[in-house]
């Protein structure tokens, strides 16, 4: 009995043959020439197909089970468990670090969210995105948690999803600072962990509980003290 390889995704079984894909994590898709070359060398060594994914990752397809562990060692990178009912990934745009249109530091905020939440076990899968301007290149309106940078500060949206059961996220607050976004997201995640049913996406939970109830619970005393009341979006049910 062959042990299932760790940190790899089973691909389509063809002629009874199993093969796997691995995805070395690169935050926001940002990497440098050295790491890219390393990934490429591993791809060459194991004769992989390379796929740049919509999740801003580089996936190496076509490894055999017994090659997976060695491939991770060759990469010198650790596999991160982002599968199943977890925070899957935080996409972010180049923001003020690189982009001429950036209005806010999406890279810094994206990294902060990633450090805190990537791989965290949650009631269902969760996707986040940060965009550095209203053009919304990382599509924050269709993520469970989406942040949009404006001149006046960050706008926070919740409850969106692409994929199987798509929905648009709603704005819960605007004019937020980097720190305020992090505090706000913490409150949302805490509540979701507590109230979300297994397999229920954040937007589905909000729909079940009701927008007003969700907002009133998440925006507790601590949050109100940190964030001015004028920053909360007034949206009727």
């Amino acid at each position, binding site marked *: 009995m062959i042990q299932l390889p760790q940190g790899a995704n089973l691909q389509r079984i063809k002629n009874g043959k199993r093969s796997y894909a691995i995805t070395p994590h690169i935050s926001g898709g940002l990497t440098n020439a050295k790491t890219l070359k390393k990934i490429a060398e591993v791809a060459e060594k194991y004769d992989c197909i390379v796929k740049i994914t919509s999740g*801003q990752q580089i996936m190496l397809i076509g490894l055999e089970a017994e090659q997976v562990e060695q491939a991770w060692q060759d990469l010198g990178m650790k596999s991160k468990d982002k599968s199943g009912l977890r925070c899957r990934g935080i996409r972010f745009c180049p923001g003020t670090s690189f982009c*001429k249109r950036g209005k806010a530091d999406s890279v810094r905020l994206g990294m902060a969210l990633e450090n805190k939440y990537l791989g965290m076990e949650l009631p269902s899968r969760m996707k986040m995105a940060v965009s550095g301007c209203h053009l919304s290149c990382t599509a924050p*309106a269709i993520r469970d948690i989406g942040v949009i940078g404006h001149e006046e500060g960050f706008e926070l949206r919740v409850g969106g999803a692409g994929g199987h059961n798509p929905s*648009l996220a709603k704005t819960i607050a605007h004019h937020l600072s980097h720190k305020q976004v992090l505090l706000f997201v913490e409150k949302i995640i805490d509540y979701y962990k507590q109230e979300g049913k297994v397999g229920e996406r954040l937007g589905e939970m909000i729909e079940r509980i009701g927008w007003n109830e969700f907002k009133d619970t998440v925006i507790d005393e601590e949050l109100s003290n940190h964030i001015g009341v004028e920053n909360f979006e007034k949206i009727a049910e």
Partner: protein
Amino acid sequence: MDVKSQGTKKDLLAKGAVLQRDGTYAIAPHSPGGILNPDELIKIGEIAKKYNAAAVKATSSQRLAIVGLQEEDIDNAWNDLGMDPGYAIGVCVRSIKFCPGTTFCKRGQQDSVGMGMELDKRYHGVELPGKFKMGVSGCVNKCMDTEFRDLGLMGTAKGFHIYAGGHGGVRARLGQVIAEHQTGEDSLQIIDNVINYFKENGKKRERLGEFIDRVGMEDFKDKVLIQ
């Protein structure tokens, strides 16, 4: 970074170079569906190093952007790469995103790679009234966010569902299904009808969804579906 160092510089559409905040440029070689071979990946890494790029970014459009090139290095970088610049910017058919489908994915029900490659060959870079994004997903999980593409395909056991009129960025909106369980051939015919109808009748900078709002969904379907 200092925006002032951009001076009067602009995106260089003909060179596929996107102006960055500090006055340098980014290039993003065309990689349909994000699929590359190891040699291409090595090449991109080497070029990034050779021209001292600030970063390489895997983008949501399934491309690798080499960020932070000097203007005078752009031509040489493309020559060294020997890859197609594609159309990452401009008012045209942008990326056609597709999932691994039956080629690689255990869940795939349709050949999204074959369909995506065909759409890329036919339409990538074609000028249209507004920018235009497509996505092909091989199953109901719709990894390519089917409802949020101007045209989105979803594979079923019997064929493809076709969605039209969505987008994911500014003023995000959901597309609607206009046809179900179409064969590959019929899907291509319907897509061709949509693109031609939009090309001839769309207003400047109008996205497909806004166009459908203006002409009405029923009329739109009359024009593009196979009767």
